[in-house]
Structures are given as structure tokens and as C-alpha cells.
């Protein structure tokens, strides 16, 4: 296959157009947009699932959905939001922003980057296909989606107690998504270590890049653990191995340890990028640097490292024993300190500043306010005796939604409003942005604050209905109203996207007068990112006299720039992996299963070879 040439006028490359150029893209900016669009779509799917859940729980003894379908809904809501919405939305920002922030032309491995995206897309479709393919497995429609909870505890997920394909979809889907995340992890670690512009020392990097850097290390160390846990589960289900077989001496807690060894770093994977975004937005709209840059960076690193030592705080009700309880309680309390320090540094950033409450700033401030609440309920959970009343109730549902919705999602919205002009070349409307923020802030609080009460008053998690005698009707009704309000807020955001496409002045390179390198180039950036790779002299290169050379960047590249073309092989390899997964899904029919898996393996291997040997220069 000949080197696909980039279209160019004279010697300046321009971005190719047309559907095929998107299918074969290896440009981090395009991949970022693909991640963002796809992840936002799944976010809406997860939100719809949440809405149905809340409608079912709006009244006691409700019969809107069956128990079985409800169990699929909350399983898919959790799985979708964690793996198909928040992580890929963060990845959208890793992709678009990190190379720009470090002064690079792309990531270290552009095709591997595309591969991660395609695997994510196909994996998400694979898992959600389960909603529709029930009849292929001799079951009704809407009956074979994963239904074991997003945490899939053994031995409920065993072949004995979950005989259908539901859990197979879940296990295989997660393994596929794991491949995407791992590949991206290797890519971004290499990119951040190796592709920084001259003078971009590690301690000059923007905090978003730093937090994303820590996140990638968490990904590459945590995902292998759940990979093995899932392998054990799949082998038990398909081959009859004994990993979680109690009658053979197996221990159901093995699953919990493996899952939570992954699961706790995972929650830091979910929050650190959003914390990074907030750390960018606040200085820009306070007109002063981040307070305590080094402390904020080290706190992020510390959270990542200590986050490996707290996993059993998800298991306090399993009777670990007083010593284990005490140790994990201590490590969990310890991690509250660097987290709090970050919050104080953010407030310190705004203190003495000149605050402009544009949309990104609203969401960043909202993040801080809501994360404080989520963090405090987290500290309550860190005490095992108290946690025995809180765990597995709506109290913990309140906690993690405050940190994941009030925290991560608000942070991601801050990022969307902040970097929208850079990505798309126009700004989102301020009025609609503020409306979106206030509706979402109110909706989020109305949904989740009452859950602190319903939890402590005795409502467990993962129940499709509850008795009226518990006295929880009003709290549930308030939560349901809040969910509807949140839905309206999302509609306002979508309206904003649609309305903002036309009209409005071009934002130029730096509409917010921000400090970091991505604002030195056009909005949107040219396909080669920077006309020259600048030499960086300061951590706030656009705010410091002489912080960056040359300044400003030349309008046109003075030297010819090589921009790699596209490639179809990342997508083909991704397809091969999905075909192998389908083969595994069919494990009840031996020959169709083996044939499909082998076909998938063949596609994968051939695609990898083509990928390895096609002419492709970065």
C-alpha cells in the first residue's frame, strides 16, 4: 500500500476530507473528536437508563419495569457510565489536548491511538448489542443484557446462578474495553515522556497533562488485575474451572480482591483528569497562576500511589478482621489529605484573583463545591463500623454520584466549554451554558442529596422496588424529580451545541487569554498543530514575557512538515478482536464458536502484520 499522501498547498499540509479520511485517521485531534462524540452518545444512553431507574423508584411497589429488566438497567447504567462515558470523555481530552499542551505534533503512536478508539467503539456496541439480541439466544428481547451489577460479584455471576449470555457479554465487553485503555496508556505515557517540546520540563507541564500522566500509570497497572479476574470468571463459565467454585475450595472473595484492586485505582482514573481540567480552568478565569503547582502535582501522584493501598475499604462488610479493617481504614483516611490539599489550593488560586464566571468557570467551581460533599461522605465510609451501616445503601450511591457526577462529569463539562473553541473553532453560547450549569447543579443536588437520607434510613442498593412502610417515598420522589431536571439540563447543553454552530465571531487562538501552549496555535489547530515547535521557558508560556520562543508562532510553517497519512489496519485489527469475542460468546455451540474465534484471530493477526509492515512514517 502506497504512502497515502496528505493533501497540501505548496508545502503546507492540510487536513484531508471525506468519510474515508475519518475512518482511517491517525490524527490525535480527529481521534479526540471521535472519542468525544461516541462517549457523549453513551453518556446519553447511560442517562436514559438512569432515568428509567428513577422512574421505577419514584414510588414504592412500582411496576414500570420488571425486576429482571431493572437489574439489567442498573448494571448497564454503571458499566456504561464508567467505561463508555467518563473514561472515553477523558480520553477525548487526552487525545486532543495533551500533544498540544506539551508542544508535540501528535502522540507517539498515531495508529495505536486510532486502534484504541475503534476498539472502544466496537466494544461499546458489542456490549450494548446485548439489549437487542435476546432472540438469537432463545430469549426475549431486552433480556440478555448484563445483569450482575457493574461489579459482577462471584458467585452470582457463575454459570450456575447466571446461566444466560448476560454475564458473557459483560466479561467479554470489559476485556475488549481493557485492550483499548491499555493501548492508550502505553501511548500516552510514551508521548508525555518522550515528545515534549524543548524546554518543556516535567515540572513545567500543565496540570491536566500531569494528572492524565498519573492516570495512564494507574490504567496500565490496574487493568491487568481485572483482566485476570475476568479471565478466571470466563474460564469458570466456559470451561468449568474452579476459581470461584466454593464446592472445590474456591473463594468468592478472590473475585472481590481482584476486582477492587482494579476498582479503586479505577475511581482515581475517573477523577484525576477532571481534577486536571479544573486546575487549568481556575487559573485562566482567576487571571492568576495555580496556587501551589508543585503541591497539586505531588498530591495527584500521591493519590495515585496511595490509591493502590485502599481497595479493601469496599469490603468492610465481608468480615476481614479488625487488623485488616484498621489498616485499610487508615490508608483510606490518609488519602483524604492530598485530596483536601488540592481543594484548598484551588480556592487559593481564586483567592486574590479577578474571577470571571464564564461557563467553564461555573462548572469548575461547581466541581469544587460538589466534590467537597462527595469527599466528606467518603471520609464517613472510611470508618469501618460506620461503613457497616452505609455500604451497599443509597448513602454510598449518594457519595459516588457526588464525586463522579458532581466531580468528574462537572469537570468534563468545564473542559468541554473551555476547549470547545479550540476544537471546533467557535465558542458555546454563554447564556445557555449558564442555564445548563444551574439546571444541572440543581438537578444533581435534588437527585442525590436525598439519597444520603434514604440510605441512612434503610434503603439498600440495587433493589427494583421498596416497601412503603419504610418511610422513604418522599426522598425517592425528590430524587426522581431531580433526575428529570438533570435530563432537562442535558437537553439545554445539546441545544447549545446545535445553536452555537452558526454565528459568533471566530475565537482566534486564545479566546480566554489562557497560559498554556494549546492556546498558542489556531482554533482549530492546523493538521500539523504548530507551525514551529516552540522552545518553552516557563510553565505559563503565554503569560510570561519570553515564556515561549518564537512568540507569536509564525502564521505559516517556515520549513516543510511531514504529517503521517491514515491507515485502515487499526480498524481491521479492532474488528478481528470483536469477531474473536463473538466466537467466545457462542461458547455453548462448540464448532460455530471455534470457527468464529479462529476467523477473528486470523483477521487480527493479518491486520497486525499489515500494520507492522505498511510504510508509515510519524
Amino acid at each position, binding site marked *: 500500500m502506497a504512502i497515502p499522501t496528505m493533501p497540501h498547498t505548496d508545502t503546507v499540509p492540510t487536513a484531508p476530507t471525506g468519510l474515508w479520511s475519518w475512518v482511517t485517521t491517525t490524527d490525535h485531534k480527529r481521534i479526540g473528536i471521535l472519542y468525544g462524540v461516541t462517549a457523549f452518545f453513551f453518556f446519553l444512553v447511560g442517562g436514559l437508563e438512569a432515568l428509567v431507574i428513577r422512574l421505577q423508584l419514584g414510588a414504592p411497589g412500582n411496576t414500570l419495569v420488571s425486576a429482571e429488566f431493572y437489574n439489567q438497567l442498573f448494571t448497564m447504567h454503571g458499566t456504561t457510565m464508567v467505561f463508555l462515558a467518563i473514561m472515553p470523555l477523558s480520553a477525548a481530552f487526552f487525545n486532543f489536548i495533551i500533544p498540544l499542551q506539551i508542544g508535540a505534533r501528535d502522540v507517539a503512536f498515531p495508529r495505536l491511538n486510532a486502534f484504541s478508539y475503534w476498539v472502544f467503539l466496537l466494544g461499546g456496541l458489542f456490549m450494548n448489542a446485548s439489549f437487542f439480541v435476546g432472540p438469537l439466544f432463545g430469549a426475549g428481547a431486552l433480556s440478555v443484557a448484563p445483569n450482575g451489577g457493574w461489579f459482577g460479584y462471584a458467585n452470582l455471576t457463575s454459570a450456575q446462578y447466571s446461566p444466560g449470555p448476560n454475564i458473557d457479554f459483560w466479561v467479554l465487553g470489559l476485556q475488549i474495553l481493557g485492550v483499548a485503555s491499555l493501548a492508550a496508556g502505553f501511548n500516552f505515557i510514551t508521548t508525555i515522556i518522550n*515528545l515534549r517540546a524543548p524546554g518543556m520540563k516535567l515540572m513545567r507541564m500543565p496540570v491536566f497533562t500531569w494528572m492524565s500522566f498519573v492516570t495512564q500509570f494507574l490504567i496500565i497497572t490496574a487493568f491487568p*488485575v481485572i*483482566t*485476570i479476574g475476568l479471565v478466571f470468571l470466563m474460564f469458570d463459565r466456559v470451561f468449568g474451572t474452579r476459581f470461584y467454585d466454593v464446592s472445590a*475450595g*474456591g*473463594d468468592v472473595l478472590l473475585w472481590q480482591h481482584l476486582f477492587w484492586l482494579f476498582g479503586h485505582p479505577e475511581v482515581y482514573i475517573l477523577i484525576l483528569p477532571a481534577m486536571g481540567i479544573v486546575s487549568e480552568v481556575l487559573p485562566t478565569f482567576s487571571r492568576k497562576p495555580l496556587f501551589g503547582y508543585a503541591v497539586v502535582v505531588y498530591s495527584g501522584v500521591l493519590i495515585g500511589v496511595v490509591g493502590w493501598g485502599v481497595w479493601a475499604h469496599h469490603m468492610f462488610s465481608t468480615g476481614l478482621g479488625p487488623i485488616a479493617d484498621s489498616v485499610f481504614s487508615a490508608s483510606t483516611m490518609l488519602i483524604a489529605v492530598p485530596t483536601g490539599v488540592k481543594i484548598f489550593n484551588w480556592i487559593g488560586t481564586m483567592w486574590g484573583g479577578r474571577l470571571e464566571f464564564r461557563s467553564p468557570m461555573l462548572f469548575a467551581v461547581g466541581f469544587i463545591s460538589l466534590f467537597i460533599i462527595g469527599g466528606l461522605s467518603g471520609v464517613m465510609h472510611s470508618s469501618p463500623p460506620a461503613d457497616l451501616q452505609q455500604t451497599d445503601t443509597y448513602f454510598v450511591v449518594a457519595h459516588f454520584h457526588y464525586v463522579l457526577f458532581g466531580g468528574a462529569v462537572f469537570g468534563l463539562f468545564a473542559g468541554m466549554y473551555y476547549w470547545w473553541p479550540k476544537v471546533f473553532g467557535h465558542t458555546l453560547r454563554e447564556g445557555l451554558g449558564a442555564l445548563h450549569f444551574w439546571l444541572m447543579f440543581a438537578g444533581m443536588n435534588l437527585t442525590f442529596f436525598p439519597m444520603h437520607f434514604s440510605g441512612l434510613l434503610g434503603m439498600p442498593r440495587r433493589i427494583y422496588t421498596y416497601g412503603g412502610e419504610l418511610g422513604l417515598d418522599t426522598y425517592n420522589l425528590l430524587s426522581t424529580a431531580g433526575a428529570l431536571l438533570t435530563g432537562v439540563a442535558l437537553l439545554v447543553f445539546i441545544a447549545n451545541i446545535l445553536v452555537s454552530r452558526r454565528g459568533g465571531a471566530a475565537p482566534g487562538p486564545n479566546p480566554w487569554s489562557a497560559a498554556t501552549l494549546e492556546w498558542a496555535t489556531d482554533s482549530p489547530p492546523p493538521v500539523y498543530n504548530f507551525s514551529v515547535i516552540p522552545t518553552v521557558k516557563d510553565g505559563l508560556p503565554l503569560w510570561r514575557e519570553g515564556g515561549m520562543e518564537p512568540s507569536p508562532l509564525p502564521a505559516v510553517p517556515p520549513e516543510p512538515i511531514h504529517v503521517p497519512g491514515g491507515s485502515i489496519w487499526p480498524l481491521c485489527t479492532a474488528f478481528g478482536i470483536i469477531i474473536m469475542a463473538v466466537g467466545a460468546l457462542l461458547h455453548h455451540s462448540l464448532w460455530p464458536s471455534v470457527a468464529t474465534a479462529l476467523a477473528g484471530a486470523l483477521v487480527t493477526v493479518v491486520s497486525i502484520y499489515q500494520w507492522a509492515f505498511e510504510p508509515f*512514517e510519524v
Partner: protein
Amino acid sequence: MSHAAVAHHTSTGLDNRKVAFWTFIGSECLLFGSLIATYLVYQGRSVSGPTTREILNIPLTSVSTFDLLMSSLAMVLALAAVQRGDRVWARVWLATTAFLGAIFLGFQVYEFQHFVHQGLGFTTNLFGSTFFTLTGFHGAHVFVGVLWLTTLLIRSFQGKLGPEKAVNVEIAGLYWHFVDVVWIVIFTVVYLIQTTPLPAA
């Protein structure tokens, strides 16, 4: 349109592929670590079926371990040959490494089917499940390595593995040595340090 310089400048001076590969190895440590930890946690807890003392053949496995170690030596020699542009010895040592890797796999296949004959299958008990999954994952890694080395060997015969491509061989070497080290750990933990109590006299 001009082409980019062959050697890309990087912030650390290290090749991107080498940096990426080291992170991959870090991640693989967690993968095998989880498998080994599970093996250790479940040691001695099988309620029925054969266990380590009845099944494992240390002398035989010592031979296959030695074979794998020698393959690492061959790999080192292959890299050195590629780096100095010695096409003949590059091919000899690459072929030797792949061949010794295949021999190791042959030993594994022989050993496993022998265990099955003795009553230890994949699903027999905890020992069977943990042992075969752990060694199976390792064997799969060796298999991928043999394919990789064979590919490099073919490239060499095509005249496309000169000293400028040494980093490709170096990375294959990193992979191969890592797989070897994992085996040393497995051999030590599973075969040599057996803590299952001796059967009563």
C-alpha cells in the same frame, strides 16, 4: 514533500518504542503477578484431586527451564550480531532462539498431556485451574514470542534486518527476556517451593 529524519528526536533520547515497551512490561508484571498471587493463595486448598507433589516432575522441568535460559543467551547473541551487521550469525542466533522456544513449548505440551493422563485437568481442582491458567498464559506468551522471532528471521532473509533495525530486535529481546524471567519466577514458586504438606506416612 520531504521525509522526516530517520532518527526522531525524543525528550529522553530513548526510542519511543523502547519506552512504550517498558511500560508494557510493567503492565505484564501486574498480569503475571495476579496469576501468581492467585496460585499462591489457592495453594493447598484443593479439596480433591492431585496436587503438586504427586504431579510435578522437577528434573524434567529443570531441563525445559535450562532450555529457556539458553534461548535468552541466543537472543543476546542475535542482537549483538544484528547490531554489528553480521547477517549470517544474526540468522543463526535468531533461528536458535526461536527453535529453543519451540522446544520449551514442546516440553510444556508433553508435560501437560502427561498431567491430564495422571488425572490433573484444567477443571479437576483448584491446583489444576490455577496451574494450567498460569503456565498456559506463560506458554501463550512464549508462542507469540516464537512467532515474533520467526518474523524477524524472515525479515533478515529478505535483507531487511540491518543494523539500522537493531532496535526492533532489541525490543523483541526485551520481550523474550521478560518471558524468561517470568518463567524463572513460576518455576521457583510452583515447582521448587512447594508448601503443600507431605501426605501422612
